[in-house]
């Protein structure tokens, strides 16, 4: 691999023990940067022979400790494998390596394939697309096309044995990789397994049709229940690409307040945002008319709303709104503060219990002295919703680490019985709630993992069932 492919620099090894969160990992023994699939195979075979743990990472920006070593070993940094290998415009898919970043995909499509688009997350442009897909990340088109994992046609992965497997249509060696069907869904062996079943070295990702006209609106509201009701009503109209409810601290943080815990009773409680797009102005106008009808109906029922405010106007008032205008985006108001800590409990759950979950979670956050930062987004046509509670804190202060961990534990204790399942799940959730996992599921998961990785070298400590 050459000297540039291997690092034992103590400073880099130490830096690899932390991510943005309160979770601490162990120091890797070495960081390896493979550039080819063959090099990944060689590293994995070497590790398997010596029963050395291998933890795959790309940008190392994931939160929750999933990309931190639990038992030292090899930190396999895949960021050098960053080629977009092919883009099939007519068949609407692209094949990428695991180090490909969001910003790269966006630039590539806008420059070379402007009729196509991918969905983008609320994540910085220099973070990885494939890792996000394998962790079932959220996109700004997930309301219409589900979470990022559902955009996978298949993957190529290096198994702990060093063998290569291709899933989806590409399992047929002469087939195009435009679908996962009609094959048995072996891609699922690599989704949400947190890198414990294989090192994904290629992924085929679905692309969507780009729209010429796109707008994002914000509404300010004084009634949280009315906000959720409005979002649910708009979901069923199928007119928006993305919808979300943001709690009041978010707006203040955009204006530079580091940790807003005080709210004037006259201030809005929530912001609702709506993304609408179309290729035709007439269709766009109709979508916006329907949106406004629902806002007016909500007002008629007694809810107070301000807006819709076009995000382009908000940017003219406060340029920092630009971070919420176009994804991928580095949410600097969450990251650029003393100590730089960012953690969250993110859950997938029933939209029918959003109000209850949001209200109870925000009360817990306020009781513990944290700004009640809440984001809720409907997914997959409204079949389920995201409820996410976010904390910023100073990672250099152990007492803040402890406070965040205690808060996150209480939030999971609260939300899990309501049906909200943590995603990108940190290992401590399994440890504290193991008894709530179906016994058959745990047994099958262990069987699958043991069959694929009998020595347990891949990202040990994750999914500790």
């Amino acid at each position, binding site marked *: 691999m050459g000297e540039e492919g291997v690092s034992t620099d103590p400073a880099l090894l130490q830096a690899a023990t932390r991510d943005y969160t309160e979770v601490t990992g162990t120091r890797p023994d070495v960081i390896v940067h493979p550039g080819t699939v063959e090099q990944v195979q060689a590293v994995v075979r070497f590790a398997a022979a010596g029963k050395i743990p291998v933890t795959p990472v790309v940008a190392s920006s994931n939160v929750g400790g999933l990309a931190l070593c639990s038992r030292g070993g090899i930190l396999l940094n895949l960021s050098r494998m960053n080629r977009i290998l092919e883009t099939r415009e007519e068949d609407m898919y692209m094949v990428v390596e695991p180090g490909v970043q969001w910003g790269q995909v966006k630039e590539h499509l806008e420059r070379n394939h402007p009729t196509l688009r991918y969905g983008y997350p609320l994540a910085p442009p220099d973070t990885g697309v494939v890792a996000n897909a394998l962790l079932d990340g959220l996109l700004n088109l997930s309301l219409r096309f589900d979470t990022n994992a559902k955009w996978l046609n298949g993957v190529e992965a290096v198994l702990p044995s060093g063998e290569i497997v291709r899933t989806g249509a590409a399992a047929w060696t002469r087939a195009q990789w435009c679908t996962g069907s009609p094959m048995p869904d072996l891609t699922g062996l690599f989704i949400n397994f947190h890198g414990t079943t294989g090192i994904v070295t290629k992924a085929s990702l679905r692309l969507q049709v780009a729209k010429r006209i796109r707008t994002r609106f914000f509404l300010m509201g004084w009634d949280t229940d009315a906000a959720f009701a409005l979002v649910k009503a708009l979901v069923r109209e199928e007119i928006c690409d993305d919808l979300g409810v943001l709690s009041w601290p978010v707006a203040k943080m955009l204006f530079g307040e580091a940790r807003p815990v005080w709210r004037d009773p*006259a201030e809005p409680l929530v912001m609702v945002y709506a993304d609408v797009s179309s290729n035709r102005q007439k269709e766009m106008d109709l979508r916006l008319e329907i949106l406004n009808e629902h806002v007016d109906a909500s007002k008629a029922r007694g809810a*107070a709303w301000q807006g819709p405010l076009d995000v382009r106007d908000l940017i003219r008032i406060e340029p920092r709104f630009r971070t919420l205008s176009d994804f991928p985006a580095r949410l600097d108001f969450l990251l650029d503060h003393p100590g730089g800590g960012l953690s969250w409990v993110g859950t997938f759950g029933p939209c029918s219990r959003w109000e209850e979950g949001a209200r109870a979670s925000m009360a817990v956050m306020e009781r513990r002295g944290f700004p009640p930062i809440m984001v809720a987004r409907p997914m997959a046509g409204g079949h389920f919703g995201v409820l996410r509670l976010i904390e910023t804190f100073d990672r250099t202060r152990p007492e803040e680490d402890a406070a965040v961990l205690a808060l996150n534990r209480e939030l999971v204790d609260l939300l899990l019985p309501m049906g909200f399942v943590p995603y990108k799940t940190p290992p401590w959730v399994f440890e504290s709630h193991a008894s709530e996992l179906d016994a058959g599921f745990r047994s099958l998961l262990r069987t699958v993992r043991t069959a694929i990785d009998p020595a347990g070298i891949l990202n040990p400590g994750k999914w500790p069932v």
Partner: protein
Amino acid sequence: MMEVRFADPSRATLLAHVFASILRRGMSDPAAAQAVAGLGRIGVQAAGMKITAEFLGDAVVLSVGGDGWRAWVGGDMSDLLGVCLSGAVIGPWLDGRVKWGGNPFALLKLLKILAAARRAGG
């Protein structure tokens, strides 16, 4: 350049943040800043929120609530933002979307700040 600050930074409302952002950009124009220096207490009311901007000689201090204004302006947030973005005051005032009271000359001076903010990219 005149400083724009909050009387109590831990108690700044969203309306205060919005107004502070506009003022900071407007104040980057020395002529506009000069026009509002020492203007006194101006009230802004929107969507139930109320703030006071006290224009001193070298700073503007924003606080939540307040009274004893020399002049005030109020309306829906979207209408007030519309005035800030377009500079068009007469139409929204004539159809009642934007209201005002007190000394009109003080508010006219405030319009210079809004115009300067627009020129500065706001």
